[in-house]
């Protein structure tokens, strides 16, 4: 595909890559610098701060008017619980679709395929009204609660992930469970002890992708949560920086860096795994 390039060709190549690197990294470097810059004002910022300081980071964890630790905790809690339950429930469903033959199986698969096409946030009005209604009966599960938000996320995560995992379970030969079934294990035991360990890669992919997706979700969280103490990071940060670019840029940058680092620390080492999941296995890496 490639032949040895001329000197001009090489210069063109490195120039293009250099330009792309500037494009890609400029915003990241700029907020990294802002987070160490003593000023809080966007306008007075310089790329290499004169008196670098950790003040903004310190403020995030000590200033009670910036509930950053609370937002991070809320986010980790909501994303963690959502992703773990998603993996378990979708694995259960995928196993049934992959291994059992029952009436309505094909209709179920088709239904799953259709439902996962519907972006959940299109129904935001309905979900909002539903959670307000649920609050009347079960206060801890309704509007403005984390369990309520998790429940909404779980609903949205079922369709695609069940479908996705089923594809993987189909590639695990049945023979691996058959001996266990012959020995008198129930299908549930075979699922838990034999198939789940074999499916570890796909479980990890779904867990990580669901975690990142939930971590980054903004719309539903912003509709369903009220009050700074309840916010997740996405809602909280928006609330924090909105109309305050001249006053809070430094603290915001520090929060953005920390918030992004958490995900980068998961994403970069595991990128192959994640990308194979995000492209639905359509592209081999």
């Amino acid at each position, binding site marked *: 595909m490639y032949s040895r390039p001329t000197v001009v060709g090489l210069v063109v190549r490195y120039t293009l890559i250099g330009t792309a690197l500037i494009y890609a990294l400029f915003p990241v470097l700029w907020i990294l610098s802002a987070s160490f810059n003593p000023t809080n004002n966007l306008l007075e910022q310089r790329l290499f701060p004169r008196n670098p300081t950790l003040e903004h980071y310190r403020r995030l964890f000590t200033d009670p008017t910036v509930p950053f630790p609370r937002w991070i905790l809320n986010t980790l809690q909501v994303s963690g619980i959502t992703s773990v339950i998603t993996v378990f429930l979708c694995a259960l469903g995928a196993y049934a679709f992959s291994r059992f033959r029952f009436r309505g199986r094909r209709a179920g698969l088709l239904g799953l395929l259709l439902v996962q096409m519907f972006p959940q946030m299109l129904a935001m009005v*309905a979900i909002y009204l539903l959670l307000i209604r649920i609050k009347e009966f079960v206060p801890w599960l309704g509007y403005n609660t984390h369990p309520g938000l998790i429940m909404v996320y779980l609903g949205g995560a079922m369709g695609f992930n069940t479908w996705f995992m089923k594809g993987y379970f189909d590639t695990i030969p049945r023979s691996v469970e058959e001996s266990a079934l012959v020995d008198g294990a129930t299908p549930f035991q075979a699922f838990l002890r034999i198939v789940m360990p074999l499916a570890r890669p796909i479980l990890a992919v779904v867990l990580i992708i669901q975690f990142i997706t939930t971590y980054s979700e903004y719309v539903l969280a912003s509709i369903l949560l009220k009050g700074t103490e309840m916010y997740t990071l996405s809602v909280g940060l928006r609330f924090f920086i909105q109309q305050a670019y001249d006053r809070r840029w430094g603290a915001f940058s520090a929060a953005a860096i920390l918030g992004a680092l958490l995900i980068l620390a998961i994403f970069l080492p595991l990128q192959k795994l994640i990308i194979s999941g995000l492209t639905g296995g359509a592209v081999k890496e």
Partner: protein
Amino acid sequence: MAGRAVVAQGVKLGLLALLDGGVVWAAISLLLRADYIPFAILTAGAFLLNYVVLSRRAYPLRFLLPGLVFLFAMVVYPIGYTINVSLTNLQTGNLLTKAQVVAQLEGRYYLPPDHETFTYWAFRNPQGELRVILLAEDGRSYLSERNTLLPVDLTDPRFVRGADGTVVAFDDFTRLSWAQIYQSLPALERLDLMWEGVHVRLATVREFGTYLRKYEYLRDADAIRDLETGIVYTAREGYFTSPDGVRIEPGFQIYVGFRNYLDVLRNPGVRADFTRVFGWTVAWSFLTVFFSFWVGLVLAYLLNDPYVRGRFFYRSLLIIPYAMPAFISALVWAGLFNTDLGVINRIIGELFGTKVRWLQDPFWARTALIFINVWLTYPYMMIVSLGALQSIPKEMYEAARVDGATGWQRFWTITMPLLWVSVAPLLIGSFAFTFNNFTIIWLVTAGRPAVLGAATPAGATDILISWTYRLAFEGDRGNQLGLASAVSIIIFVIIATISAVNFRFTRALEDVSRGV
């Protein structure tokens, strides 16, 4: 083993029995509160659960049910609900049901011109019960007794007089000071005392008056009669409306059929907004996918070149925009593009001595949004293209080289067609995703700048989904939930069409029909 199985079975049945007990208790309390819909959901759910646990035939459902519950409650039901709302006039001013509106109207009163007034003393006992003594202008006095008024003789020794001769206490009731009366106003306003066929209610802070009921619901005619004027208001288009078109607020919910959809097509104001927003939504998705694909493809081509050194290092750096949570990137970019404070305008200012009104001018706001979204999306395209490039067999290039094809020819005749096959479905998927990428729009411009004279709250950079959000949650013209739901359904139809096209590229549907 057998022993353990029996124990397990016992534990399972025990738990089920416990749960059923709880359900019965909850169901009865719901019935007593007349909450029939939650009652129906609860009972149906309980029966399903028992069936699934007890029946052998329902064994697969034991695996499926936990996930299905969430799927139904949080996706399928909301879809149905959205369709339902899209067929109603649900909006600010029409949020109540007709029964609620009738109840509200029947609780309204008016003071007829010839009404009587009473001054009053209010009393409360240690149990918090409130009673009043009313003094008519002609000197007669009355004491409230539950919701009636009884004549009373204030010379009776049970009434304790104060220094100024007024009653300060009786039985275990003590008189309220004015400060206490102000605190108790809501309770006083709720008093509705029947006396000689009229309603005696608080008229001003210092007086009670004889009120008459304002409205009467005529069940057979489905109309409201104004008892003061005699005008009959019939139920029309969600309001009780008089013959000359005067409406009583508030209105109520009604089904309007496809009117919300027809509004989008035919109502000039709504249609103009829809067309503009739809046009920008398509442009935004198309341009994002177009530019990010080409940027991604060029980078993939470069990073796949064995003569370029440090490819893996560059690749890890170039992937960073994709790995950052999008909401963080969007907020950061909104800061960088800030017209007065942002670094981008500082650079432009130093180079050209001018300022671009990034987030105030429609054209520049859209340019900035696409620039930002390309930044967010190109790494995905790069990764996808890189994978596709690597899967093209080397022999094809060898053969082409032998045939004397130039590098450019090889790219267009071999690389692109083969790449296209595996990448096209992902581009369509990416288009559909961008079509509904609310987060970026909302966190960067929030749909602004506003469009002057728009019929609905649709800004210059609003895409369909953010327009829906504004219609539903933040219009200055109230919350138009019916219209918002109709737009949601229209978006879904568009997305479903795109996905249906995409199925032709993927094998998903065939997998289902083959039944694997």
